[in-house]
């Protein structure tokens, strides 16, 4: 029993943290978010590191690692608030790999794994990162999941508050080809990926609040010496750590204990959705006026947290699933 990363996983995490800290400095995130674009060369660089295909099997050009490794990257990308089409591509990969036909796998996975033919991801409400993607994996309103060739498809951009990702209007149920396999396991894994992004966001927003509370003085002492502030920070840690425990466990369960996956994934998404939104709000409160300005970086986190909490099912919806799985039928 060991609830901690092994050396290889630790290495992935540390490398990702360092790499992202140099590539996605706050001013870079701001530049991309304000322009509403991605930096293709950064995507290439990340793909060359093998991140895009981290959880895709080697046969299709991936690294063949597991959900834990994918989750580690997602958390770090959330922590960096990185504008990248990573999450959508990973989600597309999870579905095609788990539920796609052999033909679909052969056709789409190599591009997803190499990052050169990205997958977009959508549900009946929104499509994420469709622009520039080769294909889109789309959850339909008819409970079918389809792979859509995006070649020649025109997209209608949606201008959402989260400027670190690209959104467009949903594709509808007409296009594409149904995936033949059971997609529930992929869906659960997708929840974990988003939850990890949210954990990273929450962690970052908390770090910023703690940092500020140590520096900022009011009434002749650091505001972090007042319980009104320090206890808010303690509550942030409470939220972050609960969300993190549940998310890490869910990722491990995806790899090692599939029976526990559905409950664990629903719990992780529910808790991480609430934690990220709540921590970002508290962090603004701790920052006071400055945290409410555009020039401060907090709002990029706040908005990404809000979007992530909403997408792929809200906390309420996942609690409803938890209730059913917890024995209330």
């Amino acid at each position, binding site marked *: 029993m060991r609830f901690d990363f092994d050396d290889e996983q630790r290495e992935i995490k540390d490398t990702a943290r360092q790499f992202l800290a140099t590539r996605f400095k706050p001013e870079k995130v701001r530049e991309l978010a304000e322009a509403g674009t991605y930096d293709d060369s950064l995507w290439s660089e990340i793909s060359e590191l093998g991140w895009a295909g981290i959880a895709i099997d080697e046969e299709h050009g991936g690294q063949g690692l597991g959900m834990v490794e994918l989750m580690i990257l997602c958390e770090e990308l959330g922590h960096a608030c990185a504008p990248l089409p990573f999450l959508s591509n990973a989600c597309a990969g999870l579905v095609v790999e788990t539920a796609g036909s052999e033909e679909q796998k052969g056709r789409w996975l190599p591009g997803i794994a190499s990052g050169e033919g990205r997958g977009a991801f959508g549900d009946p409400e929104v499509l994420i990162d469709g622009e520039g993607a080769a294909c889109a994996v789309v959850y339909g309103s008819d409970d079918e999941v389809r792979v859509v060739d995006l070649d020649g498809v025109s997209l209608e951009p949606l201008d*959402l508050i989260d400027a670190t990702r690209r959104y467009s209007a949903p594709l509808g149920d007409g296009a594409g080809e149904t995936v033949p396999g059971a997609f529930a396991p992929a869906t659960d894994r997708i929840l974990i990926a988003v939850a990890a992004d949210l954990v990273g966001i929450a962690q970052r927003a908390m770090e910023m609040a703690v940092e500020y509370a140590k520096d900022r003085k*009011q009434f002749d002492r650091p505001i972090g010496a007042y319980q009104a502030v320090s206890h808010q920070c303690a509550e942030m840690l409470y939220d972050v750590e609960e969300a993190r425990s549940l998310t890490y466990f869910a990722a491990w369960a995806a790899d090692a204990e599939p029976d526990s996956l559905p409950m664990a994934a629903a719990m992780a998404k529910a808790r991480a959705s609430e934690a990220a939104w709540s921590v970002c709000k508290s962090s*603004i409160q701790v920052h*006071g*006026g400055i945290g409410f300005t*555009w*020039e401060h970086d907090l709002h990029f986190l706040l*908005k990404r947290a809000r979007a992530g909490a909403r*997408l792929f099912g809200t906390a309420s919806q996942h609690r409803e699933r938890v209730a059913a799985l917890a024995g209330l039928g």
Partner: protein
Amino acid sequence: MDLTLNDSEAAFRDEVRTWLEANHPGEEPAGDIEAFKFRRAWQKQMHEAGWAGISWPKEFGGRGATLIEQAIFAGEMARADAPSPANILGLVMGGPVIMAHGTDEQKERWLEPILSGEEIWCQGFSEPESGSDLASLKTKAVKENGGWRATGQKVWTTFAHESKWCMLVARTDQEAPKHKGLTYFICDMEQEGVEIRPLVQITGEAEFNEVFFEGAYIPDENVVGGEGNGWMVAITTLMNERAGLGGGAAVAISRDLGRLVELIKEHDLQDDPVVRQKVADLSIRAEALRLGGMRALTAQMKTGIPGPEGSIGKWEWAKLNQDLAELACDVLGVEGLEKGGPWTYKMLRSRANSIEGGTTEVMKNIIAERVLGLPRLR
């Protein structure tokens, strides 16, 4: 207890309501400059009808309305969704502070243009390093023949670029203890030593500004309340602000609540028990806010000054406004994430409600110390 309006109050309400129905200027135009022009015209119109200085004594050109009439007026303004007059800070802070602490010359010079909206006022209290701890402000003013030169930075200044005058608190004695040594100035904004930069918020709008004073000149006659009395004068101003801006809050929330109920029905969620519990909770808190306002008003009528209990209302209002907008966005789904959507805007904008005008933490301190009599922090 009597929560109805008496005949004269009811007549007053009808008068306001009738006037607003006949004179409502319609929706504010888009664009900051256009919107401000619109609100300036609206204030002129209000002033001509005698509504601009509703709380001001008649001798200074106001209507001398009772507290209840003021509350009725604020409620009717909110009910009609009427825009604020352009010179709101002049009306609720600048004017009252001049009337309370100004010389006859100052009253003569400044009051009328505030009422008419001819000269806009802004407030220069907050600084980057002094938010809740106002007395720690660093902007300083140095004596220079017949006047002062002010240097420093202020933030959260509304409509600075439209303003003629700034209520500026600056340190004039570096040696004196923190709360002493401050002086309250009225500083001319139309001069070289004043630079204004818009301060964009997380909503993407620039409702506020940063103002940089770089040797801005202020003649002696623009000192209010005497050199070194700035803290005391500023406190009066802030009390006026909190009382003056809170008036229509409950009405505005109740209007938003009505919109939320409609929204829920449009999304066919009216039978969702979880949503119903949340709406009921918001309704109950909104009603408590409204009633708490009436109780505070009754108390103020007795004592003449707004009591520290008002801090509960500020806190309630902030949390309520935030929770309401959040629920609306939840109901809207992805639409509630759309940039520029009215509820999305409100959800983001409301995050500042628990910071601006005194943070919720400061409200709790005030309640603990001044209402409950608990020992002072530290």
